[in-house]
């Protein structure tokens, strides 16, 4: 009996140390990592999307201006196939007033990359929903089936990254999910194409995944706002978006195409750092506009006087300090 007890204690201690080490080694600071770090039921808005979400929407700035909190459940190249499951995952921890879904997802329905998959699942606690997301992500990739195991047991991937993990602990360039790095303070002059492409079509994968999500939203009676991210579009992508917008509107759900809103005053020659992402100037314009919209159209609480949310103010201060160091301008000057 004593031996059994000892064995159980040994295994429990092992699992605790293992989990601690795994947490440190697999830290790849990203918005999803931040999403799980925040307390349960602490977000007023949950923003789901691919890289556009965490690079365009500055959650600490929105908090500073209107006092509501936004959880960015966003990572690079999230494919449309996991959208329903990401909503499910968010529901487990948060009860936001509104879910914002960025349709950048539509672009990533195939050839998903190793890094993109890891960024979604690595920080996610184990659940059957996580297994479903992992399965969908792997199906959306070209990864060899024999390597699937590395995604279900991420320790296989990260055990050797002890040196990187130590660096990651030191450098935190995330502000409640929003990423501020040297590269998004660069300016890449782009040409804005007019949104005049009429043809609309989705392929089978996109259509099925979007319909599945819409059905789920209706079934769960969720307050959802779809958005079309600002970027340069080719005709194929414009076609996807047109078709998706039609589907969403036909289902009586809301959608905003930010590419057709002139009041935003996004200057394509200045406000992007590459062809598909807003730089810090663009993101600030976008956040100010969209945060105001959310504030005015949804009953979002102002937490600025609530001590429980003090970390949001601190993160905002840290953000403004970093911004000044990086571009030499204060947020008010943008």
């Amino acid at each position: 009996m004593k031996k059994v007890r000892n064995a159980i204690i040994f295994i429990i201690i092992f699992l605790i140390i293992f989990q601690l080490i795994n947490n440190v080694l697999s830290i790849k600071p990203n918005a999803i990592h931040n999403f799980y770090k925040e307390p349960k039921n602490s977000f007023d808005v949950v923003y789901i999307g691919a890289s556009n979400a965490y690079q365009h929407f500055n959650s600490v700035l929105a908090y500073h201006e209107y006092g509501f909190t936004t959880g960015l459940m966003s990572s690079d190249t999230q494919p449309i196939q996991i959208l329903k499951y990401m909503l499910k995952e968010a529901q487990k921890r948060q009860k936001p007033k509104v879910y914002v879904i960025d349709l950048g997802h539509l672009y990533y329905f195939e050839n998903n990359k190793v890094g993109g998959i890891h960024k979604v699942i690595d920080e996610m606690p184990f659940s059957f929903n996580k297994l479903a997301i992992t399965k969908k992500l792997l199906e959306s990739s070209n990864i060899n089936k024999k390597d699937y195991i590395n995604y279900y047991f991420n320790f296989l991937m990260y055990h050797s990254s002890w040196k990187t993990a130590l660096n990651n602990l030191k450098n935190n360039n995330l502000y409640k999910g929003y990423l501020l790095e040297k590269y998004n303070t660069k300016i890449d002059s782009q040409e804005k194409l007019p949104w005049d492409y009429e043809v609309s079509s989705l392929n089978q994968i996109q259509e099925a995944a979007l319909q599945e999500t819409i059905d789920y939203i209706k079934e769960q009676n969720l307050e959802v706002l779809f958005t079309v991210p600002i970027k340069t579009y080719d005709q194929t992508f414009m076609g996807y978006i047109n078709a998706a917008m039609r589907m969403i509107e036909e289902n009586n759900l809301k959608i905003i195409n930010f590419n057709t809103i002139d009041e935003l005053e996004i200057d394509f020659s200045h406000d992007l750092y590459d062809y598909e992402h807003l730089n810090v100037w663009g993101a600030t314009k976008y956040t100010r506009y969209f945060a105001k919209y959310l504030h005015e159209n949804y009953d979002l609480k102002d937490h600025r006087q609530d001590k429980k949310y003090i970390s949001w103010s601190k993160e905002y201060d840290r953000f403004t300090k970093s911004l000044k160091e990086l571009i030499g301008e204060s947020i008010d000057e943008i």
Partner: protein
Amino acid sequence: MILTSFTFIIFCIVSLLIYFIIPKKWQWIALLGSSLFFLFYKNFNIGTLVHILVAFGAAYFSAIFIDEYAHQKQAKWFLIEGILFILGQLMLLKYLNLFQNFLMSPIGISYYSLIMISYIVDVYRGLCKPQKNPLKCALFMFYFPILTSGPFIRYPDLENKIYAKHKFNYDNLCRGLIRIVWGLFKILVISQRLAIFVNNIYQNYLTYTGLYLIITCLFFTLQLYTNFSGSIDIIMGISKIMGIDLPENFRSPFFSKTITELWRNWHITLGAWLKDYIFYPLMKSNFIQKIGAKTKKIVNKKVSKKVTLYISLLIMWILIGAWHGIESKFIIGSGILQFIYMFLEDLLSPITKKVCKKLKINYNSLGYRIYQCIRTYLLFSFSMIFFRAASIPNALSIIKNIFIFKKGFLTNIFSLGLNKANFVVLIISVIVLFIVEYRQLKGDVTESLLKQNVVIRWTILYLLIFAVLIFGMYGPGYDETIFIYQQF
């Protein structure tokens, strides 16, 4: 199935669970099932099946007939027939590769072939009775843990263990798991790290000279040892959990003062096998006896004895080399060169002693012993150049380049696959290895670990386990471990 692969871990867990869950009288059948699954895993075809049945049939029936005609002339014929049959299939499949287009040689062919030979010879010598149950006989010959890298088992030593009913034993589980983790430490933390460096240099051997090549040669010996002995640790650990103790194959070989001593501690079961089934019979053979008689007429009895001894040793060492592969690099590297070392050691030993006496060097001092160990390591590493190189000309070219020293002292050593951090991990791990190996000389390290109080014991175990998990080289980005001795 690679020993450190996920498939192998699952295979072992399932095999062990079945082994302990089913009624004890069926345990050996479960073990046979696991062994056959392992044997035919990803290599099941009619050709392999026929080959294995033929080899097994030759060993099984030879033993039965040898026993039936015990002490009669026919017994010898059955013995010879059996040996020729087994050796024949080994030669055809493994060494001559005659059927390579449609028949892959099964895993462990070099191991189970020699085990089959030892079995029928032991029956012939009356050391054991043949196993009449063909399934039980098959279990002995194809016992899965030994199919990867040995050790060589013998029927008289194992018959009481392998078919016995084994209760699950917590102590065996602990000892087995500790052994497995230690094996994984050797392979994944040390051997795999060294392999990156060694492979890099051997693949571009013309680019490097001097110290780079010297370090590579020294590293390869360590890589080979940690790879081979690490896999043996895993094998022994798995077997231990089932309650089946296998013979040790290594005994801290790098603390050997001579090459002769090193080989008594390196691949022990192969050395013992060759001694019992090749060397001693050879010494007693008519061929050697005749040589002995002839040399006696020319030189004195003592020298004549030495001559016959050396001839037998030379044949044995050529066979050891050939067991690794019939390529000349193996025959020279792990055969003839080892013989030359031993021959010179024997020849020079009295002179060395005299010189030491004259120079007043204490033959038993720690300093002298360390010198001897280092000398042995260097000589062994030199011979391993032939073993590791792609061919004899490559090996000779490496040896030639060793003596070329260019300007700059290891300027780009950290750009050869192992960065500074990895070198630090490697050095610490090798120090740990040598401490454990040294401690092993004084007694079983696992036993003394288990006698420690719980805090020390668990701390050491956690450190070891997490060293493997964090610093082990496995998972994406790393090639699956190639077990050097699994290919023989």
